[in-house]
């Protein structure tokens, strides 16, 4: 619908445009700049064209990091989404305990990433950590600094601990919006608990779940601080996720060109996967309509 025309509105948008330019567009262009040039220090740059991109596409290192990253995101989504729904379904719907649960659930969300990392780093240590020590005492071999599986288990459990609440809270909001009449109708129709979930709760939660999945995917795909604090990417390169690898390359080795090319591709991959997610889910939604 075309509204009343008023050119003054542009002036109101201007500050935002400027802000976005400084905070996003200009840094991004710097990265683009690095990605097509080479330097040997002293601020001397040489045109490198798409050389870095080609190099990165040919490098095993990036592909294995990408593989690791996808596996990580896949695992945590597979755990957090069903677990979040399960928690939401079992939360009290109203009253004191409902508020209590909500507060409890939002606690992990309020803790800064590096603190979460530090907590789990200490929690999992065999010598002084409660978790590590207990597992060790039970005779289970657990050492996240040396054992790949233990390292993975630690960062996955940590992420689940940190973020399942978000999925649960979103799912809970979806559940709360279902009118009572639906549950009454289901009772009258003698629907089983599973049928109520499958035909009433899940369809009504679909919208918020889509948002939850998208948020969790993007966030986990960009994860850096927590695994860096806990494992530092080790043992070996076992938990070197994309972002950790990128930082190693850019700051550790000061390979600015390849790192810039890497981050641009990283950015495009996130954009691409999110777009695919979004389109697939909205078309499923539209088809059902």
């Amino acid at each position, binding site marked *: 619908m075309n509204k009343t025309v008023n050119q003054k509105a542009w002036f109101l948008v201007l500050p935002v445009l400027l802000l976005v330019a400084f905070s996003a567009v200009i840094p991004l262009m710097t990265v683009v700049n690095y990605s097509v040039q080479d330097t040997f220090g002293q601020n001397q740059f040489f045109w490198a064209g798409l050389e870095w991109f080609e190099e990165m596409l040919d490098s095993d290192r990036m592909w294995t990091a990408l593989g690791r990253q996808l596996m990580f995101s896949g695992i945590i989504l597979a755990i957090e989404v069903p677990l979040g729904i399960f928690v939401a379904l079992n939360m009290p719907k109203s009253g004191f305990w409902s508020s209590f649960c909500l507060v409890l659930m939002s606690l992990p969300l309020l803790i800064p990433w590096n603190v979460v990392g530090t907590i789990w780093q200490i929690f999992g240590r065999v010598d002084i950590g409660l978790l590590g020590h207990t597992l060790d005492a039970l005779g289970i071999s657990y050492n996240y600094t040396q054992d790949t599986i233990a390292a993975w288990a630690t960062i996955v459990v940590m992420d689940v601990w940190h973020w399942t609440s978000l999925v649960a809270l979103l799912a809970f909001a979806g559940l709360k919006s279902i009118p009572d009449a639906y549950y009454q109708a289901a009772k*009258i*129709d*003698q629907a089983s608990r599973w049928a109520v979930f499958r035909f009433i709760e899940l369809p009504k939660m679909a919208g918020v779940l889509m948002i939850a999945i998208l948020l969790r995917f993007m966030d986990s795909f960009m994860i850096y601080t927590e695994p860096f604090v806990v494992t530092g990417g080790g043992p070996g390169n076992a938990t070197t996720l994309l972002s950790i690898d990128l930082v190693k390359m850019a700051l550790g080795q000061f390979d600015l060109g390849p790192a810039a090319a890497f981050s641009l591709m990283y950015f495009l991959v996130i954009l691409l996967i999110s777009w695919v997610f979004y389109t697939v889910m909205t078309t499923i939604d539209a088809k059902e309509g």
Partner: protein
Amino acid sequence: MAKITLDNLAHSYLSNPTGEDDFALKELNHVWTDGEAYALLGSSGCGKSTLLNIISGLLHPSQGRILFDDKDVTQATTAARNIAQVFQFPVVYDTMTVRDNLAFPLRNRGEDPGYIAERVQKIAQMIGMEDVLNRRARGLTADAKQKISLGRGMVREDVNALLFDEPLTVIDPHMKWELRTQLKSLHHEFGHTMIYVTHDQTEALTFADKVVVMYDGRVVQIGTPQELFERPEHTFVGYFIGSPGMNVIPAEISGTQAVVNGTALTLQQNYGAPTGNVALGVRPEFVSLTKGNGLPVKVRRVEDVGRNKIVRADLFGKEINIVSPEGQEISPDMNHITFAPDHVNVYVNDWRQQGAVA
């Protein structure tokens, strides 16, 4: 199908009700006949939803029993009562097809697939949705969804009662006609016991054999549409049914004579000498404007509403409504009114009085 008995029933939302005012539903004793269509009519907060929820089993009464065919179901769950309900907003399973929606209650009860298919086909035909059986329910219009809810309620042959909770609220006025008509003919065809909650008099009177008028937690009258119109038992019924509502005119009564502000009228029956808040109740349809006969009035406004005219007049400082037929001319010298004698009711403290033969 079942007969429904409400025995000594009352409900309060408070855990320790002290006086009658604490009860959302005040004590009532009624037997509702098997196969009849009842409408619970009243404005919001009158207790009609409370009563419906007690019948459907969503609410357990704080006092009394409810019986289906002489079987006590007061503590039975909704599922155990074997009833069907259509809600204010259409409740459909969005991701299922129309067919699966209709089959759902039967499948949950483990019915034979052949029987289910046959039954679904029959219901779809009844509600006129045969051609959309394979469509998903999501994206259908509100009235189509409401028809599915209705169909789901009727698909079981053995339901004890079909309950409706203001089912036409979200339906477009032009579709209301069609759905109301359909409901009515379905009732004639299958003879379910039906209970329909509404605040809309036309919906109630159109739909029901018997209308249960509720006011302030109490059933003030159960009657046929005709009885409610001609013999309202309570001034609220007179006000609530009919548009505009019944005129209530304070009067003094002695025997067969009523005196309104000094002017005497003769009544058809003998009412003795009632005391308290005495009034005459006359519907606007039974008031006629005359040129000098009866009580003096001052015409304030004439509203032409098409098939008749509503005259708003002033009778001893109180507004009185008169309905006159479409063709009738209203001239300035029409400044008196008379009442149709057999349609004058007498009320004492809001309740109608039965007169003796004069």
